[in-house]
């Protein structure tokens, strides 16, 4: 059962939860949070995606984190106008 530890200072914790929900169809996913990190555990993984599931998940969370960070930056710019 693969596990992924995502540091909260690097990844957006809310995004990790959202993305985890998207992957529920291909694995049983447990998300645990402590003050520093979000840990994602994948059980009952669909054998078709076993090889790439964690890799995909990692890129997906990264992309969504960057998206959030960019949008937040623009909101700040908008506020200061």
């Amino acid at each position: 059962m693969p596990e992924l530890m995502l540091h909260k200072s690097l990844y957006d914790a809310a995004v990790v939860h959202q993305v985890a929900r998207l992957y529920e169809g291909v694995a049983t996913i447990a998300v645990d949070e402590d003050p520093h990190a979000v840990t994602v555990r994948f059980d009952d993984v669909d054998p078709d995606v076993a090889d790439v599931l964690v890799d995909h998940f990692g890129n997906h969370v990264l992309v969504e984190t960057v998206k959030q960070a960019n949008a937040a930056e623009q909101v700040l710019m908008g506020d200061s106008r």
Partner: protein
Amino acid sequence: MTRRGSIAVTHPRLDADKLGPFRFGRIDDKVLLTHDTGQWHLLSEPDFEALLAGTLGPDHPDHAALVDKGFIRDGMDADAIADRLRRKKRWLGMGPHLHVVITTLRCNQSCKYCHASRTDMDRVDTDMSIDTARLVVDHALRSPSPFIAFEFQGGEPTVNMDVIRFIVEYSRERNRNEGKTIEYSLVTNMTRMDEDKAEWLLANDVFLCTSLDGPRHVHDWNRPFAGGQGSAPFDEVMKWVQYFNRRYVEMGRDPELWHVDALMTTTRKTLEHWREVIDLYVSLGIRNLYLRPLNPFGFIMKTWKAVGYDQEDFLRFYEQALDYIIDLNRDGVQIIEGTAALFLKKMLTPDDPNFVDLRSPIGAGTGQIAYNYDGTIFPSDEGRMVDAMGDPIFALGRLGELTPDEAIGHPTVKALAVASLLDTLPMCSTCWNAPYCGVRPLHNYMMSGDLFGQRPNTPKCKQHMTIARLLFERLSRDTDGSLEAIFRRWTLERPRETPPPDLDADGDAGASPAASSPASGDAAPDSAAATE
């Protein structure tokens, strides 16, 4: 076995407080700086380092230009930059100008890549009614835009010619009170054309755009008649392109302005015969060749194996074709590549072509509206195609029920705008190509189920980046300015009713009337790129 190593890096000296806001990238061995206004500048690496360090002084030959364009802070005129930016984005808040009307879904062809959701010729239930057509005109004329372009699409739109005639006549009548500038264009396969229709289209100044995929063996392979009839669609296209072009001359129209435009969809067969395709366009006197890749809509998913190709193959083909077209121009042939011309207008003129699919935010819903035959309103024809594939997510509402204000303010339209604002998108927000580019949320949705998509994984990003890079590379190597003169000609967009502007010795078109015509670029190629 693991191996350790290290990479030596040098952070350049930076005095950021001496700089203006800009984006940068590498073109050949130079650094390209681009500005929100679309202005750009190429610097050598050492000069770029001097710029960053704040040591590129007034004695440097590029200093004045860098200040004027806003790359150097000391002396920058931020108010003038604001004015340029406003001019570039003057379409913001203007409202939809492009109104795509699906007069019918019926079509007598069955194209290999058809994403227009066609129905067979006996399906008269997929024709637009006159009552619906009246609502289309009423809706479109309530757009705040002073320019309205009705574009007739299908199916094969001429199958329902009554609706085309009605919309042209009724909108003219209604416009007596509105005072807008209205244009009409028809995207047709020409196979249902006859003299009666042709003469009416000529008499009513309806611009014509046909599909022409190349020589007979390519065109007829891509676009067979439904049911496999023996006759050749290619012959019909040839006959009518020549007919219309001859009639324009007989009517005393300037053939440079009045001619049939054509659109080409690139299939695997086109890649093999690209030079023949271009030669055919040239021989027919077609001035604007639009090299369009297949898009992910409709039936194409099923037939990709037969007609599709890798993105890399398309981009290689594009580069070869672009260089061939440039060579033809050097020999005096007047032909332009449509997508390149759009980018060049953004790069070389103070204006923007307001091409609905190449702007930030995208024009879906705010620059374009599509009306299905049954009166359903979509933010773009692509939204209508997604609907035809069984996913109604982009339907905004129905004519007669949804007001124009409600359509523009619809949450779906807002979502499309947010998903296409380059300033907020990862990678785009810092990309040197952002002033010239645009993203396609509906493509992203089709490919990944997400309006935003992942930029490095979206084919449109790679296409746009490659096209802009090819153009900048060629400009950067243009030691005698001859290519720039050709490219500037490509940016000319003259209103069809006015005489040609005088070009100065450099072929500089910057001050031409067309360069400031807000309606420029709104004719057929704009929409067809979005919809076919």
